[in-house]
């Protein structure tokens, strides 16, 4: 246990040595705080939730409205803060869905091996062979646009990554002595799988989950932009960028600020991801994320 703690603290100091990673980490923390305390930090919380204010339509950035107002007169800063809430919550839900579905399958595939393994992994490979964003768009387009459908649609092509990850871990773990001894004292298969092996797979799963957050937020924003994700009046960055499209040349701020929010958030997660990757395993290369 002590060895592992030292590894973690070493990794942490490696992560903190890279200024770009620290920058990313700072942005994520700020975003999380903004999202958590949205009702207290947003200048106009009711407008953040969707209340329109038609007397102040399309106002440029000013002291009263630092990022201007949209076509329904809502304060963009408040909308963006509330949008952070929606985006982060949605991304966390997607990560939980894909872990909840992918991890047990990987556990079963890795532990039982043989035909079961073959069947699960070939199925996972097949899903990975599809272009993921396209599949997500097709799923939402046919099941009807809503946030829930968007979350499911993004999860469907995504879980196999976790199945692969966990399976690899399980295969190396199941030959370890502590598993051997659990088996010797007569622990059931289920108990060995979930009590002994799974807890040891958690940290790579967690790291991978963090790495994927940025990409998932980007996917959600893309679906929102096409009108296939969050539905109005809930604030969503992708939807806001699309709303501003009609005013792009005259009221540039409506699309620019929400888009910048997506960009900065995804960038922050990717920077932290890079830092984590370098610190934990210098050999791991940037995985190609299928768009």
């Amino acid at each position: 246990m002590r060895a592992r703690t030292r590894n973690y603290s070493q990794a942490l100091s490696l992560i903190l040595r890279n200024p770009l990673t620290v920058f990313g980490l700072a942005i994520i923390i700020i975003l999380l705080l903004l999202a958590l305390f949205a009702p207290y930090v947003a200048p106009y919380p009711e407008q953040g939730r969707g209340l329109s204010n038609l007397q102040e339509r399309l106002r440029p950035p000013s002291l009263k409205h630092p990022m201007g107002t949209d076509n329904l007169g809502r304060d963009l800063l408040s909308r963006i803060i509330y949008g952070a809430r929606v985006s982060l919550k949605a991304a966390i839900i997607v990560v939980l869905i894909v872990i909840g579905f992918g991890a047990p399958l990987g556990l079963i595939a890795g532990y039982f091996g043989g035909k079961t393994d073959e069947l699960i992994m070939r199925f996972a490979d097949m899903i990975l062979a599809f272009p993921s964003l396209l599949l997500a768009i097709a799923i939402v387009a046919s099941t009807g646009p809503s946030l829930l459908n968007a979350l499911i649609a993004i999860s469907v092509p995504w879980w196999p990554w976790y199945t692969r990850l966990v399976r690899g871990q399980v295969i190396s773990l199941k030959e370890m002595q502590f598993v051997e001894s659990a088996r010797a004292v007569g622990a059931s298969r289920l108990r060995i799988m979930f009590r002994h092996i799974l807890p040891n797979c958690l940290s790579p799963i967690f790291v991978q989950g963090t790495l994927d957050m940025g990409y998932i937020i980007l996917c959600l924003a893309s679906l929102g932009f096409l009108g296939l994700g969050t539905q109005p009046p809930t604030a969503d960055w992708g939807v806001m960028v699309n709303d501003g499209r009609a005013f792009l040349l005259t009221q540039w701020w409506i699309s620019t600020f929400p888009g910048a929010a997506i960009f900065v958030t995804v960038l922050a997660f990717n920077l932290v991801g890079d830092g984590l990757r370098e610190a934990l395993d210098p050999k791991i290369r940037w995985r190609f994320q299928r768009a």
Partner: protein
Amino acid sequence: MLRYVLKRLIWLLVVLFGLCAVTFTLSRVVPGDPAAAYLGPRARPEQVELVRKQLGLDRPLYVQFAYYLRDLCRGNLGESLRTHRPVLQGILEHLPASLELMFVAITIALFVGVPLGVFSAKKENKLVDHFIRLFSVANVSVPSFWLGMIFQIIFFRWLGILPIGGRIDTVTALLHPIEKITGFNIIDAALTGNWEAFWSVSSHLVLPAITLGAYSTGLIARMTRSTMLEVLREDYITTARSLGLSEFEIHFVHALRNAIGPTLTAAGLCFASMLTGTFFIELIFFWPGLGSYTINAIFLNDYPVIMGVTILMALFYVVVNLLVDLLLAIADPRIRIQ
């Protein structure tokens, strides 16, 4: 090698079968009755019943799936609910415009990304390296639809030097019509010596192509940098240095040749996934390609079009992936033995 190719082809068939199963399922969960959708809102119940029979919707699901597969094998993707024209025809009409955009985008991505990656590796951990790395991460993080809009604000609204969208200027298209040879406007204009149109087409390509290629540029630069760093530590680089070769020759000739493999794989995958990217870019830049065609279908709930495009795009993606793998296997014998 033959065994490897066979194995991969069988796998391709399995993936395609799975894909068809997915699109078939999706086209059956569509809210509402496909027959009613086919006829429009003013159809009478008897008519709907008749069309249900004609479309085979009254048969068991597995029979429907078999018919579906048969139609797909014949290249029949169904017909659009709105225009009642064959989906395949619509796709083929819109494909060249998208391919033209994708080819220019991937070319830009390679010509910018590879030198950046090499340069970044050469200056490892120097300030330039940090800037290039930040630039690459920014490229893979930026939402393409937003980047396109920012370009429109800057280069059209503020500077006024590039067009906001479309494939060609309307006046130019009327005065100097492009003769259709390949379907790629830029090539057709050059082939027929139609330079007026050529300039217009080129200027319309700049912004959408850079936007579409942004993600690939970042990914290619990252890929090149990391493989270059590995290669630069090899013994033969030291040998090359001791022989007195110039740094340029060492980096761009000897090291790059051995580092380019993974980069080209990434470029192939990027190219394949760009088809989905066109959905956003074509919407922003009013580009009349496959992306616009699909987005319209999504807005109009034209399911046969959406499913047809999904199948063809996924097929394209899977086949490009396969080709990339086969090329790699030819280049590197270790892969086919695994």
